[in-house]
Structure formats: structure tokens, C-alpha cells
């Protein structure tokens, strides 16, 4: 004990008191009583530690007999359960059904990012390396085990092996999507796919003889599901097997899931504490296995997602089409499982080839030609680095939600650096006059960077990164970015329009323009509504939700003051401030932008928002019209990528229309809502100061004018609060398409 004296019992436990030997002659001693006596004299919270006890030491320690960490600790019940295990047990069909269903739950829970050691490896039949030679043999004296259960388990093992190999491609993130752990997996490696399929045939033949047995019929369902999933995975892992994989996945979805009972429990088969056999694996949090129904839904959803997404990839011809597909994957809610996302990414790019045939460099060239409508001669400067960054653009869309946002904002720097180099190359090729230089390559890079920036910002809404009081800033800034986006495309179009032979490619730019314009108008509407909500005290910063205590008021004043506002602005928009383009709107510029709204009454803000939504709808219709010349799958992909925008535009249009028709703003009482944004902020500050003075026990002012002003300000604030609570209940949610808030205005 630092600075203290160890009692005799603890002295004996000190590492310095005995010579530590590491030999076979060591005799283990039970020190429980010694530790108990020694620690009796310590007071609660008192700590004994070596002088240098590092964070690493702390994190690698375990608390002996803590069931969360001490994997070797087995209770009496655990011992009893483990003792029940008997591989020679003669199983009946109901028991085989129970074991198979539990394994199915384990497998699907593993897909939901659980550890192998908490799922698949808990099954003793699975981890028993030396299998009985009678597996699959009709002469077996344990036919249910050898002709039914083991075929299903071997099939499961091979499916897991294919999935494991796919994860080995590292398309999804280890610690967030997939739990690898320090385990070298074994998935019945001695069996090939044809062995597994043969065994499943044997199981099917055995079960079909028992048509009257309900358990047999349900096991047959599991055999069919296993076969189609196994064959689908096998085809997916081959270079050109996607078409056959889609057929198997379609068959899997058609299998009727007639599972009505869970079978008969067999004790000892599943060892939930199997982690004790893998001391190098870090302990994980206890989990609950997914239910049978949830497991089936997960499998079917994976099959459905794979079928849909791989099918869409097969049909995509243009880079634009591929981009829509991946954008739609990114915004899907709920997200596809990690395995699905990994397979989609592998189907897109593997070993430097796009869809098995085209090199990444060639794909990057095609991207610039198509998206920027550039002439072929402009593409002198496409290199491997640019191609890899483009592949990463697609890969970002296949990550889990939080990771998508993180790496989107992180990759902006790479795109920014690439743009600077490409700009110089474009200047070398076409000269420095911007009115003459189309800047083909750097324009394309800028376009891709803008898409990534916008997606990164909107992902924050989806992930609930922002509190409601930040919505005006978020959507206000995003409006500026999208305005820059539209202006950029207009510039690109001006060069394309000069060349009549580029007209077909101009259509693609027009679609991108329609998309950016629709989002810009929607963003503008969201900004105006959020700004109105802020003025109406609906969106309130957390430090304003206080009791009126002195410290809370002081904190509120400090956090409302300009230095704190500047700091928050800089922090929230840090990723944008580090980019060369679009030009970063600094805090003073932002204040000037917001001041433009100052002349608008709250009613005006809602009307302008409604008009913006109408323009957004027109832009979306334009986009569809420009897309009508594309193939049906391409148009469908465009619509899927823009579904959240459509939904937000329509839902908010309806809400605003009801609000504006309700005449809430027509009464005399609401005429006071003409107070401007700047005045609203001054009002808030003035009341804060008055409240703080009161909390500090200061004498109220005797200046009648000031008293009257404060009274009037309080009355205004009370009127607004009453209006909102009595007449205009505003709420917002993100719901099914979480990128864009949907507002509801209820006039009771």
C-alpha cells in the first residue's frame, strides 16, 4: 500500500516475499483464507497496488470469480450441465430438431455481430473434432445423429466457412460489424461442398420416409433451407457464379417455413461457457440468442437483400447507375447485415477489378467520361491512387451507419488533395483561364467530393448526432453547400452544351443537377422551418432548460455568448473548414446569412418553406423526366436513391399546407410573432440577465422604462409559449427515412 504498512497476511501475498519459480515442482496453495484475512483490515474503497500499475495492467486484469470476465468460473449448475454431454447419446427426431434450431439461432446471432464463442462454438457436436465414422452411413446405430443432425451441422459449418472467407476480404469493419476474436475457426474443414450436399441428400431421404412425423417434416424444412443457403453461398464465392447464386437465393425465399415447435431440449449439448477453453480470446458481454422467428427473418432478409442488390448490380451498365445503387444502400433503414454489405462490395470490386472484368483505372476513366461528360483526350491524369480513392467512395456506402459518416468526413481530405493536383493538371492541359478551361478531371473530383460531404452531413441526422437546436445550423449550412453544388454543375453544363455531340452525356449532368437542386430546396425548407422553431422556442438549447438557479443561469449566459457560439460553429463544421472547396462560410459569414432571415415574420418563414418544397418537387419531377431516357433499372435506382427526399418533400408539404390553411397566424395575438430573429435572441438574452440578477438577489431596477421593457419581453415569450402549446403543437421525427426531419403541426 503506497505510504502505508502491509499487515502480516497481506505481506505473505506480496510478490517480493517469496521467490517465484516456474517449474513442474510448484505446489498450488489455496490462498482464499489468507486473502480474506488480509483484506479485513482494509476500509471500503482503499486500494493496494504496485507503484507502476498502468492502464494496460488494469485492462488486462480480471476480477476472479466475476462471471463477466472470469471465463473459467463455473457454477454448480454449469458443472451439472456440462456433465450431461454425451456424444454417443441416441437422439430422437424431436431432440435433433431442437439442436438444429438452436444452431440456427446461433448462426443468425453470429451474423448479427456476436462472437463465435458465444454462438456456433457453444455446440459440442460442432466443436467435437473427431467425428464418428458412421456420419452419413445408413448402417449407423445412431441414425438421427448421423443421418440428420450431422448433415445439418456440416451444412451449417460450410455456410459459416463461406461467410468467414467473405469477411476475410475486409470489406466491413472487424470490431464493429464482425466479431473475429483470437480464434482460428474450424468449420468442419474436412468436408467439401459436395460432401455436405451429399449428406443433406442423405438427410432428406431419411426424413422423407417419416412423413407422418411432425418433427421430421420440420427438419426437412431446415434441410431445404440449408441446402439453398449453402449453394447460394458457394456460388457467391466463385468468380462468375452470381446468376446461379440469385437462383438459389430465390429458391430459399420460396421454402415454406413450417416450424411450429422448438423440439425437445437436450441437456449438455450447448456449453455457454465454452470461452474458458480459449484463454487467448478476450471476454465479451453476455448476449441473448435471437429467437427462432427473428433468426428466420434475418436469413430471409439477407437472401432478399442479396437477391435485390446483386441483381441490381448485374443490370447496372453505367457508373451513374452504380452510384445510385450504392447511395441507396447507404441510406437503407434498417441497414443490410454486414455479410450482405461485404458481398455487395466484393461483387462490385475484387482484387483491383470492377465486376470481375474492368480494371479500377479504366473504371475511374469511365466515371470521369460519363459523369463529367468529358472528352476522352482529357483523361491523361487518371492514376492508381485516384482509382483506389474512387473504389473507397463506393466502399464507404457499404459500411455501417456510424462508420459511414466517420470515414466519409475523413476521406474528404483525400478528395480535396486529389482535386488540387487535378486542377494543376487541367491548367497545364487547357490553360489557366477559367472561362476557357473546362477543368474536366478536377470538376468530376469536386462533384464526387460534394456528394460525400453532403452524405456525411445528412448521416449525422440519421444517427441523431445533432440536437434539435442545431438543426438551423446544419440545414442552413447544407443549403449553402448544395447551392455551390448546383452552381458547379451549371458550370460543367455550360462547357458540355457547347459541344453538340456531348448532348446525351449532358442528360446525366442534368439528372445530377435535378438531384442537387431538389435537395437544396428541401434543405432550404428544413432550414426555414427549423429557424422558425428556434424563434418559437420549440428548439431550445439544453442549457436553457434550467431551473433558474444561479449557476445554471450563469452557464446559460456563458454558452449563449458569442465565443461559445463561435466554438460550437467551428467544432460542428470542422471537417468543412479544412477543405479547399467549397469556400468555408466562417462564423461571421454565417451570422450575416442568418440575418437575411431577420426581416421575415415567422409566418413568412413557413410560407417560404412551402414554396421551397414546391420547387423541390418540380426538381424531382425534372430528374425523373431526364431519367426517362435511361433504362428502367437505372430510373428505378435513381428513384430508390431519392426516396427519402421524395418522402420528406411530400410529408412536409402536407404538414405546411395544413398549417398555412389553419389561419393560426391570422389572429391579432399572433401579430406579435412578427418579432425578428435578432430580436428574439435579444429577448432571450435580456430575460436571462434579468433572471440572473434576481437569482443573485440583486435589487430589481427602479428604471420604469427598463421594467416595462422586461415585462413586455416576458409577456411576448409567454404568448409565444402559449401559442405553441395551445394552438400549434410542433413536433418532428425522422421515422422511416431518417435523413430528413418530418414536421407535424397540430392545431388543436
Amino acid at each position, binding site marked *: 500500500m503506497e505510504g502505508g504498512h502491509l499487515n502480516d497476511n497481506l505481506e505473505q501475498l506480496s510478490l517480493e516475499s517469496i521467490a517465484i519459480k516456474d517449474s513442474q515442482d510448484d505446489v498450488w496453495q489455496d490462498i482464499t483464507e489468507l486473502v480474506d484475512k488480509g483484506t479485513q483490515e482494509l476500509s471500503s474503497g482503499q486500494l493496494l497496488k504496485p507503484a507502476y500499475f498502468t492502464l494496460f495492467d488494469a485492462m488486462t*486484469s480480471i476480477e476472479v470469480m466475476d462471471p463477466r470476465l472470469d471465463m473459467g468460473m463455473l457454477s454448480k449448475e454449469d458443472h451439472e450441465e456440462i456433465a450431461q454431454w454425451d456424444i454417443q447419446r441416441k437422439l430422437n427426431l424431436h431432440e435433433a430438431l431442437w439442436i438444429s434450431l438452436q444452431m440456427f439461432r446461433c448462426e443468425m446471432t453470429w451474423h448479427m455481430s456476436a462472437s463465435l464463442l458465444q454462438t456456433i462454438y457453444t455446440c459440442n457436436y460442432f466443436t467435437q473434432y473427431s467425428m464418428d465414422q458412421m456420419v452419413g452411413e445408413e448402417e449407423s446405430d445412431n441414425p438421427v445423429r448421423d443421418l440428420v443432425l450431422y448433415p445439418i451441422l456440416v451444412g451449417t459449418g460450410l455456410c459459416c466457412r463461406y461467410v468467414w472467407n467473405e469477411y476475410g476480404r475486409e470489406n466491413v469493419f472487424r470490431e464493429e460489424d464482425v466479431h473475429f476474436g483470437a480464434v482460428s475457426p474450424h468449420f468442419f474443414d474436412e468436408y467439401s461442398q459436395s460432401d455436405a450436399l451429399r449428406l443433406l441428400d442423405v438427410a432428406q431421404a431419411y426424413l422423407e420416409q417419416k412423413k407422418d412425423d411432425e418433427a421430421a417434416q420440420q427438419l426437412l424444412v431446415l434441410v431445404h433451407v440449408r441446402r439453398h443457403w449453402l449453394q447460394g453461398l458457394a456460388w457467391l464465392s466463385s468468380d462468375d457464379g452470381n446468376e446461379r447464386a440469385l437462383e438459389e437465393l430465390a429458391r430459399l425465399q420460396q421454402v415454406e417455413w413450417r416450424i411450429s415447435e422448438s423440439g425437445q431440449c437436450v441437456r449438455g449439448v450447448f456449453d455457454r461457457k465454452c470461452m474458458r477453453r480459449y484463454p487467448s480470446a478476450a471476454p465479451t458481454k453476455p448476449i441473448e440468442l435471437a429467437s427462432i422467428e427473428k433468426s428466420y427473418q434475418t436469413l430471409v432478409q439477407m437472401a432478399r437483400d442479396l437477391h435485390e442488390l446483386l441483381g441490381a448490380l448485374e443490370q447496372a451498365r453505367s457508373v451513374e447507375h452504380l452510384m445510385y445503387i450504392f447511395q441507396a444502400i447507404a441510406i437503407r433503414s434498417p441497414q443490410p447485415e454486414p455479410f450482405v454489405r461485404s458481398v455487395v462490395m466484393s461483387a462490385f470490386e475484387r482484387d483491383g477489378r470492377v465486376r470481375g472484368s474492368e480494371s479500377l483505372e479504366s473504371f475511374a476513366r469511365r466515371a470521369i467520361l460519363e459523369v463529367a461528360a468529358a472528352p476522352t483526350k482529357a483523361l491523361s491524369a487518371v492514376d492508381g491512387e485516384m482509382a483506389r480513392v474512387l473504389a473507397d467512395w463506393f466502399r464507404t456506402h457499404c459500411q455501417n451507419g456510424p462508420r459511414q459518416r*466517420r470515414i466519409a468526413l475523413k476521406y474528404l481530405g483525400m478528395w480535396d488533395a486529389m482535386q488540387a493536383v487535378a486542377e494543376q493538371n487541367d491548367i497545364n492541359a487547357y490553360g489557366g483561364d477559367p472561362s476557357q478551361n473546362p477543368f474536366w478531371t478536377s470538376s468530376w473530383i469536386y462533384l464526387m467530393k460534394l456528394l460525400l460531404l453532403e452524405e456525411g452531413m445528412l448521416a449525422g441526422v440519421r444517427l441523431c448526432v445533432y440536437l434539435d437546436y442545431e438543426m438551423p445550423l446544419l440545414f442552413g449550412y447544407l443549403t449553402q453547400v448544395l447551392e455551390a453544388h448546383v452552381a458547379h454543375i451549371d458550370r460543367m453544363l455550360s462547357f458540355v452544351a457547347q459541344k453538340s455531340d456531348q448532348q446525351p452525356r449532358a442528360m446525366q449532368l442534368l439528372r445530377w443537377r435535378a438531384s442537387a437542386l431538389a435537395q437544396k430546396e428541401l434543405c432550404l425548407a428544413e432550414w426555414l422551418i427549423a429557424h422558425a422553431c428556434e424563434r418559437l422556442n420549440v428548439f431550445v438549447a439544453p442549457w436553457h432548460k434550467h*431551473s433558474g438557479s444561479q449557476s445554471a443561469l450563469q452557464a446559460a449566459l456563458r454558452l449563449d455568448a458569442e465565443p461559445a457560439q463561435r466554438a460550437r460553429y467551428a467544432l460542428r463544421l470542422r471537417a468543412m473548414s479544412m477543405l479547399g472547396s467549397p469556400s468555408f462560410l466562417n462564423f461571421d459569414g454565417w451570422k450575416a446569412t442568418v440575418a437575411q432571415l431577420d426581416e421575415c415574420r415567422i409566418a413568412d418563414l413557413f410560407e417560404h418553406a412551402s414554396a421551397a418544397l414546391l420547387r423541390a418537387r418540380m426538381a424531382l419531377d425534372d430528374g425523373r423526366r431526364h431519367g426517362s431516357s435511361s433504362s428502367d433499372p437505372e430510373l428505378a435506382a435513381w428513384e430508390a436513391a431519392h426516396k427519402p427526399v421524395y418522402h420528406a418533400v411530400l410529408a412536409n408539404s402536407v404538414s405546411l399546407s395544413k398549417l398555412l390553411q389553419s389561419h393560426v397566424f391570422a389572429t391579432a395575438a399572433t401579430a406579435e410573432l412578427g418579432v425578428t430573429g435578432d430580436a428574439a435572441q435579444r429577448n432571450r438574452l435580456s430575460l436571462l440577465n434579468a433572471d440572473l440578477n434576481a437569482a443573485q438577489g440583486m435589487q430589481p431596477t427602479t428604471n420604469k422604462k427598463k421594467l416595462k421593457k422586461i415585462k413586455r419581453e416576458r409577456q411576448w415569450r409567454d404568448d409565444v409559449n402559449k401559442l405553441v402549446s395551445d394552438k400549434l403543437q410542433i413536433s418532428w421525427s425522422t421515422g422511416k427515412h431518417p435523413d430528413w426531419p418530418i414536421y407535424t403541426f397540430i392545431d388543436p
Partner: protein
Amino acid sequence: MASTDIFEYRIYEKESDLEPAMALIDQDLSEPYSIYTYRYFVQQWPNLCILAFNKQADKCIGVIICKLEPHKTNANEYFGVNKTVLNRGYIGMVAVDPQYRKQGVGSSLVMQALDAMKKQGADEVLSERC
């Protein structure tokens, strides 16, 4: 410590504060920490462990656990060429009960922790993910 109508904030005081803090953090982390990890922080930097309580429910609903120690660094423009040791703060864990999220509790905990570290001379503060 700042307080509101509903929430009260205070620093770690005693061993019994550890249990609710651990329960909150264990709920959300992917891997369990042993008690030694918590003790490593709170024994050395008790005033950098801040807890948030719901006054009405008398329940711990948020916690932040940090540390602050010297860290060798290369000379750089920002801190000056002569400064080779920085006081580096580190936010180890932050957790808020899901029921009380989106009410500014996490932000308050972080801001109070940063204030405390600044008062103790922190030059920089890191967290796991930025």
C-alpha cells in the same frame, strides 16, 4: 457543479459511486471492463470522474471518466519548440442512460470534464474517436 431542475452533477466521492457508474458504462460498451480499470481512473483522478443524477428519481443517469497526465511530445508550432511535455487529458468513458439522452446530459458532462482538466493545466484533451 452545474445543476438543473432535474439533473445534478458531482464528482466521484466514494466507492459506492462506482457501482452505478460501472452499470451505465457496461450497458453500452462492447467489452466488459474489470473493476480494476475503473479503479485505475477514479483512484488517481477522482475529480475527473463526474456523475449525473436524476434528482427526482435519485438515480445515476450519466457518467464521464477521464485522466490527465504528462505526455512527451515533439516540438511543434502550436505549443512552442521548448515545450516537450504536454499535460494530456483523456476522456476514457462517457455514458448516459438511454432514457435521458438528447437532453444535454452528455454535453454537460463533457464540458464540465473539460473545464476541470483545463483548471488542472491540461494542454490538450483526447478521446478514443474524434
